């Protein structure tokens, strides 16, 4: 998985002294008997590009709407810049939102759409025109100023929506599936632009997305949501390498999971007996575990390698290749273990035509290092 962001940026905001720009304390939103948000606690720091990631219906959009002021939480509090804004209506908040459907005003020109927020705060005309021009240039649509929304393409509308949301120089920009309506090529290009823009302006971005790749590429941190709860909050790399729960591991990327129980732990080396492997698996895990505790071992497909007899690797399994999916850059292989469980591993297609390619029904030995897999206790 690629990442647009320079890694050093990732921890820049972690100053324990600073008041976070957004603090969500025990927020729940109940519709009838359905918990759209269930006791959510989050802190988001100044200058972050924070993603709320999850499948549809996980409550991520509800949380964004609570931040924007369109919904009032059933319980809990929202602080922006240290001030309790839970009961503050949308039109008095220092957040601006870019809507999934863009929500451009169809009866106004591009210019008037961008100027709309500035007019509400009675900005003086000259300054307003100046700001509109600046915004048009920022998103590179200067030539479209006089057009109406129905005369624009999808990508152009997206830019107008972004310019309109940024025009008031909000402290926080909320983006609801900002790239959802764009085609794949344009989406990738726009990801770059959004990240560049955010780094340049220093505005805190909070984005809602169901696309894990999008969240991984752009975010400083991701909050993975599931059934109204926050499952895990971490930077993309930690989220992928050290999933906290089974749900996190399965939602982001591909993963192989082996259920088992702890045999013994020696410092950070844990030996786990799994149902589907003949030999116990050795895993690195620094938190103390008790013997006999049921756990799951998670291993990413790209960390599983094909072994030869001479390789010295404690984690080893044998199986038969059942399926091969060729994806161009990599191939995904499905291997059936003697127990019937299937294990996935990937190999990059370095050569155009390998001399001895792995084929169907071939028996292979797979292995991985003890420090490239993780233990899930939930």
């Amino acid at each position, binding site marked *: 998985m690629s990442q647009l962001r320079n890694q050093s940026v990732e921890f820049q905001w972690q100053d324990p002294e600073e008041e976070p720009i957004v603090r969500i304390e025990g927020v729940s939103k109940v519709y009838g008997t359905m918990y759209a948000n269930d006791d959510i606690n989050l802190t988001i720091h100044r200058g972050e590009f924070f993603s709320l990631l999850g499948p549809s219906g996980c409550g991520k959009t509800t949380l964004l709407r609570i931040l924007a002021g369109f919904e009032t939480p059933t319980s809990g509090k929202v602080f922006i810049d240290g001030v309790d804004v839970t009961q503050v209506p949308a039109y008095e908040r220092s957040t601006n939102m870019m809507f999934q459907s863009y929500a*451009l*005003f169809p009866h106004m020109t591009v210019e008037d759409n961008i100027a709309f927020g500035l007019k509400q*705060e009675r900005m003086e005309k000259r300054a307003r025109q100046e700001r509109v021009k600046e915004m048009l240039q920022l998103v590179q649509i200067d030539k479209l100023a006089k057009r109406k929304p129905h005369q624009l393409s999808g990508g152009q509308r997206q830019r107008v929506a972004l310019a309109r949301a940024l025009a008031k120089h909000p402290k926080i920009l909320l983006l609801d599936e900002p790239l959802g309506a764009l085609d794949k090529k344009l989406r990738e290009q726009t990801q770059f632009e959004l990240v560049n823009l955010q780094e340049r302006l220093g505005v805190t971005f909070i984005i809602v997305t169901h696309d894990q790749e999008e969240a991984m590429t752009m975010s400083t941190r991701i909050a993975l949501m599931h059934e109204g709860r926050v499952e895990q909050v971490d930077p993309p790399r930690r989220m992928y390498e050290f999933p906290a729960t089974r749900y996190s591991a399965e939602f982001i990327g591909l993963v192989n999971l082996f259920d088992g129980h702890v045999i013994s732990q020696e410092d950070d080396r844990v030996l786990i007996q799994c149902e589907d492997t003949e030999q116990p698996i050795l895993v690195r895990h620094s938190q103390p575990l008790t013997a006999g505790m049921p756990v799951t071992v998670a291993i990413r497909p790209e960390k599983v390698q094909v072994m030869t007899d001479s390789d010295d690797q404690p984690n080893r399994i044998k199986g038969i290749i059942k399926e091969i999916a060729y994806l161009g850059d990599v191939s995904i292989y499905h291997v059936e273990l003697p127990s019937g469980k299937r294990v996935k591993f990937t190999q990059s297609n370095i050569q155009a035509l390998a001399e001895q390619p792995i084929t169907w029904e071939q028996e292979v030995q797979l292995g991985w290092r003890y420090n490239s897999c993780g233990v899930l206790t939930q």
Partner: protein
Amino acid sequence: MMLPQAIAQRSRALIIAVPWFWLALFFVLPFLFVLKISLSEPALAQPPFLDVIREIEDGLVTIKVNFGTYILLLEDSLYVSALIGSTKVAAISTFFCLLVGYPMAYAISVAPKHFRLPLLMLVMLPFWTSFLIRVYAWIGILKGNGFLNQFLLWLGVIDQPLEIMHTVNAVYIGVVYSYLPFLILPLYATLVRLDPILLEAAADLGCRPWKQFLTITLPQSMPGVMAGSMLVFIPVMGEFVIPDLLGGPDTLMIGKMLWMEFFNNKDWPMAASLAAVLLVVLIVPFVVMRHFEQKAAEELQ
């Protein structure tokens, strides 16, 4: 054998031809008759005019066009003031229909979904009773010792019965009452299609609720306002039942005039030319309406 394309083209032409044929048969042709009568001379005959194209002797045909009625229309201030009177009544009634109808249409459009249909039914319900009977009912309400006056006297708001019946005010009340649904329905249709997300977007940009209505809802509902207004304005221009039943001698309206020329004066050419002039006058607001409809269609794309 015909190519499928040719068949498709032919059947398309056939389908389009149906409304054209309808229009020609039931609108253009009768209008040409009216136009012909308007150009003929009045006479004591049955029917009471001399046809433009007449057979004098065997095989000899004369064509005699008479513009006299049109000249009289322009010269006699009665007709001009009737036209102005109609326009005034139509314009003022349309204004009051908007004043009453906009809040109603808006309220229905923002009501919970399951309430909208019953509310619309309530608006349309009076249509189930004959128009004429409903206008007659207003006589009972508005007359000197009618329900309204009795009620107001009983309340003690007035000590003399109000004189509403047989005044232009009675006409306004009758017209606004009768034509309100024509304004509410198209306006509702426009309002209910507006995207509520746009109001959220406006609120998000710092716009307060009342201003959201003025800057977002109102401008976007203009096509509906125009369509509804035209649906009230155009028929009210030619209205004759309401001014005849509720209005007095001072309510001059072109529709009533036409009725009088036709049935009381038996001057068919005059009545026909009034009808022709009314049509031409009404085509103007109709073109305006079409313009707004097209604009609305463009923006909704």
